[in-house]
Structure formats: structure tokens, C-alpha cells
């Protein structure tokens, strides 16, 4: 049991001297259905530090997408505050980019044009942009498909493009909402490996929503567990399994079982 105690450790107080990359304070979200209030999120607070990969896991309908939309700036919290590197979040912006659950590419643009889209808004230097796009195309393994339209590539490849088009903007926080949920098992594992590889190279802070515990254990530095009605964070677990993690290892299964018992 000793090694396990070392791998699972509730994160009550973080003592990092760093400024959190993302901090949420007493967030709440209330929707109104025909006049009746529906409390979707209640009193959510957490800090995420630069370069961390956090997985948020919880049952369907507990408010994961709602929380992510508020961080992205698509949705105003009913109460509470969100800060990114000390700045309050008020609207969407390229410092917080989302990889959505469903296909969100522009179908009238090629793979390459989709990836260059955000960069074009920002940088005047065309040559530099092209180089950045080529580099990221290479990193996600899509160089041969740069001129394809999204309709002509597979679901897994579309999510690679979705990942590339935001990574190329070098966001401070990468928000991912069950991005691999719709893929078959093999592509999902490939995508998880790819994400870890990219995370190792580019070191973005990642806030990753999933309802798949194995996925969370493969990826996360830290897993936040949510429960529903109202959505709240019920535990916050540091995952200290050594990387690269083997999905078949005993440690992996033990950790899986232990966390499983909590929800």
C-alpha cells in the first residue's frame, strides 16, 4: 500500500510559489428552465499551475462543458471569478483555446487553411506563419494531408487538425472537452499518446475534460472529480505514476480501482 499512498494524494493546499495559470474562485452557474432555477455548478474553486495537465472527470450532465465554456469566455458565470495568469476572463480569446468534442473545423477551408486561420488574424509575417503551420502539421503527422478538406479525412485526423489549429497559437491554456470521446478505441489511444508528446514538446497548461477514467489516468498530473446536482468538485487527486504510463500495468489498475471507488 505504500507506493499507492505515494501515487494518490489529495491536493488540499498547493504550495507553489508560482502564479496559477488558471484560477477559479467560488464559481457558480444557474440556468433557468421555464422560470425554475437549475443550479448546474456550485462553489467551484481551484488553481492550475503553468504546464500542468489536469483532467476533470465526472458523470454526464454534471456541468463539465458549462465549466469549460466559462473558462473559455463563451459563458458568463452566474457568480465567482476566473483568472488566467492574473487577468480576469471576460470574453473568448486566443490565450484560452478550445478543442471541442464535436468536429468544429471550417468545412470550406483545407486542413492547412484551418490551421493557419487564427495565425492570420494575428501575425503580419506570412513567411513565419507558413513555417509555424508546416511545423505543427508535421508534429501532428498531417503534412501529407495539408490540402485535404475536412470532409475527406477521418474523425481522428479532424481532431488532430483541431488540436493543431489551437496549438499553433501557443495558448496559455488549452481547454479540451472530451475531444477523443467520439473516436474508436485505437484512435483514442493514438491521440492520447500524441497529446502527451505535444505536451512534452510545447508545455502548454492543459485543462482536459473527460468521462473516461483510464484516459484521465493516462494523461493527468492531477485529476479533479466532479459530482452532479449541483456540479461541484468532490476530490482533487495528484497522479504520480511515472511517465510514460503503461495502460496495462498493475499500478495503473490499482489506481483505477481506487479512484473508481470514490464515485
Amino acid at each position: 500500500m505504500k507506493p499507492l499512498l505515494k501515487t494518490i494524494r489529495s491536493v488540499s493546499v498547493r504550495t507553489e510559489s508560482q502564479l496559477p495559470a488558471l484560477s477559479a474562485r467560488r464559481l457558480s452557474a444557474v440556468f433557468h428552465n421555464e422560470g425554475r432555477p437549475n443550479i448546474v455548478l456550485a462553489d467551484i474553486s481551484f488553481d492550475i499551475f503553468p504546464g500542468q495537465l489536469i483532467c476533470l472527470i465526472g458523470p454526464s450532465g454534471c456541468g463539465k462543458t458549462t465549466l469549460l465554456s466559462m473558462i473559455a469566455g463563451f459563458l458568463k458565470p452566474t457568480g465567482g471569478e476566473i483568472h488566467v495568469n492574473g487577468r480576469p476572463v471576460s470574453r473568448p480569446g486566443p490565450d484560452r483555446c478550445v478543442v471541442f468534442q464535436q468536429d468544429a473545423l471550417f468545412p470550406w477551408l483545407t486542413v492547412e487553411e484551418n490551421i493557419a486561420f487564427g495565425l492570420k488574424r494575428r501575425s503580419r509575417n506570412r513567411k513565419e506563419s507558413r513555417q509555424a503551420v508546416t511545423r505543427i502539421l508535421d508534429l501532428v503527422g498531417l503534412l501529407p494531408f495539408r490540402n485535404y478538406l475536412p470532409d475527406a479525412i477521418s474523425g481522428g485526423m479532424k481532431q488532430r487538425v483541431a488540436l493543431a489549429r489551437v496549438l499553433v497559437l501557443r495558448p496559455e491554456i488549452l481547454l479540451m472537452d472530451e475531444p477523443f470521446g467520439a473516436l474508436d478505441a485505437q484512435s483514442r489511444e493514438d491521440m492520447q499518446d500524441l497529446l502527451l508528446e505535444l505536451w512534452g514538446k510545447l508545455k502548454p497548461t492543459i485543462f482536459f475534460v473527460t468521462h473516461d477514467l483510464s484516459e484521465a489516468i493516462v494523461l493527468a498530473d492531477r485529476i479533479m472529480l466532479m459530482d452532479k446536482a449541483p456540479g461541484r468538485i468532490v476530490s482533487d487527486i495528484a497522479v504520480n505514476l511515472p511517465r510514460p504510463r503503461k495502460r496495462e500495468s498493475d499500478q495503473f489498475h490499482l489506481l483505477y480501482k481506487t479512484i473508481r471507488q470514490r464515485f
Partner: protein
Amino acid sequence: MIIPATVLGVWTVVGTVGIAPAYLLPSPVAIVKSAYLYFAGNPDQGPFAGRFFNDVGVSLLRVGLGFFLASLLGLPLGIMSGRVPVIHQLLSGSINAVRAVPGISWLPLALVWFGIGLKTTVFLVALAAFFPIYLNAASGARQVNPIWLQSGAMMGVDSLRGTFLILIPAAMPQLITGLRLGLGISWAYLVLGELTGVPDGIGAVIMDARMAGRIDMIMVGIILIALIGRLSDKLLVAGLRMFSKSARRMK
């Protein structure tokens, strides 16, 4: 190809066997002859000879102006009303009321306002073409996948640029549908406007031919409208494809 060929065959037989007299149903050969004279004849070869280029030019100008005005108003108003609920509420009541009035009943009013000629025809064409353009633009803009707009916002696109970079390309298939319907209706209302006694235009040819009992020229006029209508539709689609990636790439 089968149906037109059959119609042509039956038509020729009916004419030659004498079921229908030639002054009611001229033979295809007679019509081709009239069409040729109309196209390439000299004015001394008959009342319609050589009028083609002037008539088509004038009609194209009227349709073009009317369709252009309809698009100029219909596209932006439609897109705004599809995205901004307040604008939709402001516009939809009055637009539906105006739309409920059959287009033809505007004719007397247009004649009083604008007199016989260019303005009346352009007015009728613009009015009729406006509705399909507006309605399709509105529904196209309304149905744009919200995730595309969110994607744009997070990649740093403000709403003005988002309109041109995301909203319009995303709604393009429906914008095209509206424009094509609008152009089709434009030709119908062109003929209506030109039936009112203007001296030139394809509609005027049809009207003059009726007065003169020239069934052959009525048919030439009808066929001409059909051909130019088709051609203008093809040109419209080709033009849109040339200038918009989304028109080229989305179904």
C-alpha cells in the same frame, strides 16, 4: 433529352397533319426562321427583324438592376435578421405583410409611381427577388453552427471580421439558393413589367407579337427567356464559385 424530343416530334406532326392551324401553332421550322430574322435580320424585313440585341440588352439591364438592388438589401438585412433577434422582430412582421401581397398587384401602383419603363420594371423585379434572397439569407445565417462562431471568437476574430470570414462562408449554400431563386423570379417579373407597353425588351416582344397575332414570335420570346434565364443562373453560380471558396467547396 427524351421529353423535349418527343414534344418537338408531336409538335411537328400536329402541325403537318393539320390538327392545329399554323396561325395557332406554327411549325418548329417557322419558329427557327422567325428567330433567325429576329436575331440577324434587317429592320426592313419585318417588324421584329433585327431587334434581338437591343431587346436583350435592355432586358438584361432591367433584370440586372432589379436583382442587384434586391441582393443589396436582401443579403445584409437577411443575415442581420438571422443573427440579431431584435432586427428579426423589427423586420419580420412588415416583411411578411408585404410578401403576402401578390407581386402582380404592385403593378398598378408602380405604374402610377414610376410611369411606364425602366423604373417600374426594376421596381417589380427588385421587390419580387428581395423575398427569396432575404428569407434564405436569414435562415442560412440563423442555422450557422454556433461552434464555428465560437471557434472564430477564441482564435481572435471580432464580430465584424467573423461576419465575412465565418458567417457568410458558412451560410453560403443558402445564400446561393436565395440568389438563384431571386434571379429566377427576376426574369418572371421582368416579363410582367415589360408587358405594360414599354417599346423594347423581351417582354415587349411577346406583347407586340400578341397584338400582331404572331404566335411564332411569342414562342421565340418565351424560348429566349428560358434560355437566358438558364444561362444567367449558370453565370451567377460560376461567378459565386469564382469569388468564394465556400461556394466552391460546400455542397
